[in-house]
């Protein structure tokens, strides 16, 4: 059996999660303390990939990264084609995982007692130091939860990936795509194997997350304390 879908899925999800972690955190930190109707629009925009059909996300990404799209042209000038390449799987997974990271990171940052931030400022700390040494460590359990959810979501990405990256075995064929094409080719045993593997990984991740946030002592204290 060809194991490449497993390695592609893991490589894609890990890369997408790392990108999402940084971009999501940056977006959440930037959004903190900003008010106004424009911000509501920003929130809507950031959350959109969570509710849009994956086909819509995939189509919009095709418009952006296609040969005639603004970003596609840019990459072409640099000598790279995004569509139907491995990076395309990462882009699709990042975009759909981003909202989960963004919401959880924001909720976690909002839970940090604002007077701690103020106290740190009066003690001479720069905004970067306040974020890195006070806000982030205190929001860390939530951020980690967001990271795991993002990973699980990236692992499960199908629609947008298929549209942007296609199905090239050994390059862009992730587990969900392998399952789809196995079923289409009537290779039920292969489809079932991949299904079990996918369910196994996702279940382990989610169970691990819940174990970690609900059963562990410090985790529980953190969640209930403000």
């Amino acid at each position, binding site marked *: 059996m060809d194991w490449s879908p497993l390695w592609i899925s893991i490589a894609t999800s890990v890369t997408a999660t790392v990108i999402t972690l940084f971009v999501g955190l940056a977006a959440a930190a930037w959004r903190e303390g900003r008010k106004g109707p424009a911000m509501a629009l920003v929130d809507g925009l950031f959350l959109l990939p969570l509710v849009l059909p994956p086909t819509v996300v995939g189509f919009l990404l095709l418009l952006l990264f296609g040969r005639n799209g603004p970003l596609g042209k840019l990459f072409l000038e640099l000598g790279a084609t995004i569509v139907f390449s491995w990076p395309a799987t990462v882009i699709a997974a990042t975009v759909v995982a981003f909202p989960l990271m963004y919401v959880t990171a924001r909720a976690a940052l909002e839970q940090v007692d604002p007077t701690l931030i103020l*106290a740190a*400022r*009066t003690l001479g700390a720069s905004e970067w130091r306040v974020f890195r040494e006070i806000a982030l460590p205190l929001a860390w359990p939530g951020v980690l939860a967001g990271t795991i959810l993002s990973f699980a979501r990236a692992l499960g990405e199908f629609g947008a990936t298929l549209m942007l990256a296609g199905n090239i075995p050994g390059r862009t064929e992730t587990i969900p795509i392998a399952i789809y094409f196995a079923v289409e080719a009537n290779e039920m045993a292969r489809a079932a194997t991949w299904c079990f593997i996918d369910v196994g990984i996702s279940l382990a991740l989610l169970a691990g997350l819940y174990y970690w946030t609900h059963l562990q002592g410090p985790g529980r204290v953190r969640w209930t304390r403000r």
Partner: protein
Amino acid sequence: MALEVQIEKKLLDFVLHVSFRAEAEPLSILGASGAGKTMLLRCIAGLEQPDRGKVTLNNRSFFDSEAQVNTPARQRRIGMLFQNYALFPNRTVAENIGFGLKGLPRDEQSKRIAELIKRTHLAGLEDRYPRELSGGEQQRVALARALAIEPEALLLDEPLSALDTHLRSQIEIQLQETFSTYRRPALLVTHNMEEAYRLGAQLLVLSRGRVVASGGKEEIFQRPPSVEVARLTGCKNISRARAISDHAVEALDWGCTLHLAQPVPLPAGFVGIRAHHIEFVEAAENLGGENTFPCWLVQSSETPFRITLFLSLQQLSSQPQAEGSQLQAEVFKEKWLRFRDKPFPWHARLLAGAVFWMKE
């Protein structure tokens, strides 16, 4: 060394409009909840931005709306204490105290931390986390942490209000100790008049965003300039008054004529007397004496050592009494036991020196 503040900031339902100058000594800012005290401190510290005005500390301009100066909080070197202590929960006591010392050489940091731990009586707790400390210890850590940056001014936002009575007096002593060596402006915000009196050398009374009294604390407590200040400083007895001669007024709410030690400045205003200044005298010897009136007990309310008596200067009838017509007298229980069983009317004396005149 002085802190000069003159700011204006629109708040939810009123405008904070304050100007004052704090010398190198503790200044208490007294005001009811929601008077704008916390916002005032945050504007001084640079944590909030006023709409207009100036904040100057030792001739350094921190905020000036006209010159477009607004120094960020981290560069102001103003130490701040918060009601909920605001200790960093992920750092030990020593790490909390050392947070503002980043940039100094390591051994200098540990030297200063050790010194502050000694000064705030925290020896032995260096490696504890805030959650392992009592409220009083936590506030001492917060004080040490604020002092670590050698602040040019100290701002204390209700530092005692989350503590229970016993710890409160301990921290009060700690603060007095700190103030005695800290010869820079220190602003203490509180809604507790006794705290304000004990800790501040000067007093500023704030009401709905405005300064309604400022100056020496004895003066403000002895003769509050207005009804508002009288109430905020804990005066229970206030009556509308009409002047009838240079040194006499008719107290309209209480229904009596009072002699005052000070001349009456205006034809109409208010008079007040603190509850513990009302004395009880024997009828036979004093009836008709200065400011002595027969009185009847309406109600009473006990605390462990004292009793508050709600009195009427008119004989009680079945008709409901007008609001504000009762006088509140506060006496020690030992004293009260001596006349509690005597028949009514009792006789209350409102000493002329204790009655003060106020404007609206």
